[in-house]
């Protein structure tokens, strides 16, 4: 998958180190009800300047994956070497012995080659907000209501740069101007409640980008916003990204949003990655039954569908995930091997950049995929 088609481009530099590479990440939490395997063997990578869309339903582990990478999980414990290499059983054993409600993460999250899971908390503090920053869903709760937006922006600047507060104020105003806040010189002294939802999200974006990070993690940045405001915010993120070459990880439950903004897509289900592909490939040749179900469940603004292709049942509990393939209880194609084997993410024979975690035969999946995309009007001919 190289070159560009219809403005959907993807650059591949073989041998180049990706900006962020996550390998076999696992994050388990100890709770009153037992051990929650919130992230259970997730791998993906993000190239500089690219947008990775992470799609999944609630509880699929998308947010916890990002929180683990940035060391933001509450009460994160560490696995000492004596506790073993970090195999799932050892993690469970470690948590069972613990008397407190803690979480642990294993695997690797390599940011420019540095494993963030092993980084000290002071190193992470200097990294967050400078090289990697994050935007959250709810712009009201992520801004401090008793400080002016200027104070909060200035704090973000002076924390990472050695400049005078006067200079920092100028940087803050310039940041607000850049995200399209009118009369930034005056609005800088306003409090968050004086801004509308869309404007608050702009302030969050200004704050996240003020130190020109290489990677921006946006966790459902537009979910709380109205559709016309959502369009403004998505445009703003992609304009700023183009201008500065920032890589973006966009976490969302909305397939429409990733279809229009992402270069690559990761589909998560029950704490694991079930499919991963460049955006056009994912929509035109989806290979995992869950992806088919997700695409077919979506009411469309561009196509009239008589009936939605629903997936029966509900996502499994991560306290006791089903044995074998986690999607098996809801999958119409499941066969006996799915009960016992946990399918690994495997590349297609015809495309090493398209991975899916399903035991079905590739030729069979291609046939079903063609049928589904045809029914949903997703084939290239339909467009």
């Amino acid at each position, binding site marked *: 998958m190289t070159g560009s088609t*219809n*403005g*959907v481009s993807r650059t591949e530099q073989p041998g180049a180190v990706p900006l962020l590479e996550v390998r076999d990440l696992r994050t388990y939490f100890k709770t009153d009800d037992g051990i929650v395997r919130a992230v259970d063997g997730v791998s993906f990578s993000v190239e500089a300047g690219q947008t990775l869309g992470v799609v999944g*339903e*609630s509880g699929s582990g998308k947010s916890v994956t990002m929180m683990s990478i940035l060391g933001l999980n509450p009460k994160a414990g560490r696995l000492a070497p004596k506790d073993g290499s970090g195999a799932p059983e050892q993690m469970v054993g470690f948590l069972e012995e613990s008397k407190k409600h803690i979480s642990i993460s294993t695997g690797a999250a390599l940011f420019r080659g540095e494993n963030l899971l092993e980084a000290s908390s002071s190193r992470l503090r200097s990294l967050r907000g400078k090289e990697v920053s994050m935007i959250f869903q709810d712009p009201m709760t992520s801004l401090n209501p008793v400080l002016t937006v200027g104070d909060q922006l200035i704090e973000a600047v002076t924390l990472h740069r050695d400049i005078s507060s006067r200079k920092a104020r100028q940087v803050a105003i310039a940041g607000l101007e850049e995200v399209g806040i009118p009369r930034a010189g005056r609005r800088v002294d306003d409090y968050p409640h004086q801004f*509308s939802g*869309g*404007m608050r999200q702009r302030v969050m974006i200004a704050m996240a980008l003020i130190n020109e990070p290489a990677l921006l993690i946006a966790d459902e940045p537009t979910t709380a916003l*109205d*559709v*016309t*405001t*959502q*369009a*403004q915010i*998505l*445009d703003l993120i992609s304009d700023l990204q183009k201008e500065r070459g920032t890589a973006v990880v966009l976490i969302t*439950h*909305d*397939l*429409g*949003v990733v*279809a*229009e*903004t992402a270069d690559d897509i990761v589909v998560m289900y029950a704490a694991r990655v079930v499919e991963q592909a460049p*955006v*056009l490939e994912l*929509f035109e040749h989806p290979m995992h039954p869950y992806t088919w*179900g*997700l*695409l*077919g*469940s*979506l*009411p*469309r*603004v*561009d*196509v*009239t*569908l008589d*009936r*939605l*292709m*629903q*997936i*029966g049942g*509900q*996502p499994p509990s991560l306290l006791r995930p089903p044995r074998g393939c986690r999607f098996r209880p809801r999958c119409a194609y499941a066969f006996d091997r799915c009960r016992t084997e946990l399918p690994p993410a495997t590349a297609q024979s015809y495309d090493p950049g398209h991975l899916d975690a399903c035991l079905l035969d590739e030729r069979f999946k291609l046939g079903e995929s063609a049928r589904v995309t*045809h*029914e949903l*009007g*997703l084939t*290239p001919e*339909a*467009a």
Partner: protein
Amino acid sequence: MTDALLEIDRLTKHFPITEGIVFKKEVATVKALDGVSLEVRRGETLGVVGESGCGKSTLARLITNLLTPTSGSVRFDGQDVATLAGQELLAFRRQVTMIFQDPYASLNPRKRVGFIVAEPLIVHDVGTETERKRRVQELLEVVGLNAEHYNRFPHEFSGGQRQRIGIARALAAGPRLIVCDEPVSALDVSVQAQILNLLSDLQAEFGLTYVFIAHDLSVVRHISDRVAVMYLGKLVELADAKALYAGPRHPYTGALLSAVPIANPRLGRQRRKLVLTGDVPNPIDPPSACRFHPRCPRTQGMCSIDDPELRAMGQDSVHEAACHFPLERWPMTPDEMRAPEGLPPLAGAGDELTPPELEVSR
């Protein structure tokens, strides 16, 4: 007997904003709904769509007689609902029920499912206790739950299952009209599809009429026969779902449609978007005349002077819009788009517009 089950005539609801504690002084009003007229036909689904603050939930509460209109009327089956009292009001409440947005907040956590679903039957004094129990178990199965769920509590269910309980409760008294206020917006995509399919099945089975309120244009397109688009308390466009999505006439509807991300990368990235500038104005002090004019790409002098009435567009009497300068083409051409004075140029204006064929043949 007319075709209309529900007739809404120049319906207006203003909420006063008061100052002072003992001597409350009205300082302003929130014009939540301002002169909305429409009909809901027997057996149809009318979708009501709009952004936050457009008055769609106020409309739902006026239809179900949970609020009293400031002026105008809602007539259900020929009767003005605001004048109902006693037995008549009780009978109305049996016939018009509601499904709510939040499946967590809309079920009493201290009551068992059996009671929650049976409550409408108890209120309306339908059947004996054994009959009620049988009816509730039947209803639970109709909505895709098990009769054994009768004795469970709401917290034992997932969001989608709770929404099914809410639907069973809405069905219990045998309604003719169900007002669904954002019934799927709190649900995940796969569960949302289950609930939408269930609502369609129930409509076919029981001959129900739905008023379906949502902010998601894709969901509204999927479920609705006709669609009403609202903006700041006004009805701006009303048409058959297919016609509305294929060729919106009001510029606001056009902007809404072009803002919805399309789950099809080729189509979604090809099209040029009409991105509105600014936010929805404050309903306490809405813009004069046409409320959309400060953000409208087609605004002209008279838009700020004369408030456009909802009128039929062309020969097509089923397609109405409230606009002095309705869209002639969809998508708009670049020269049709211009920024209102004092605002930066609209995104997309001046560029070559690639037409998104919104209707994809299958």
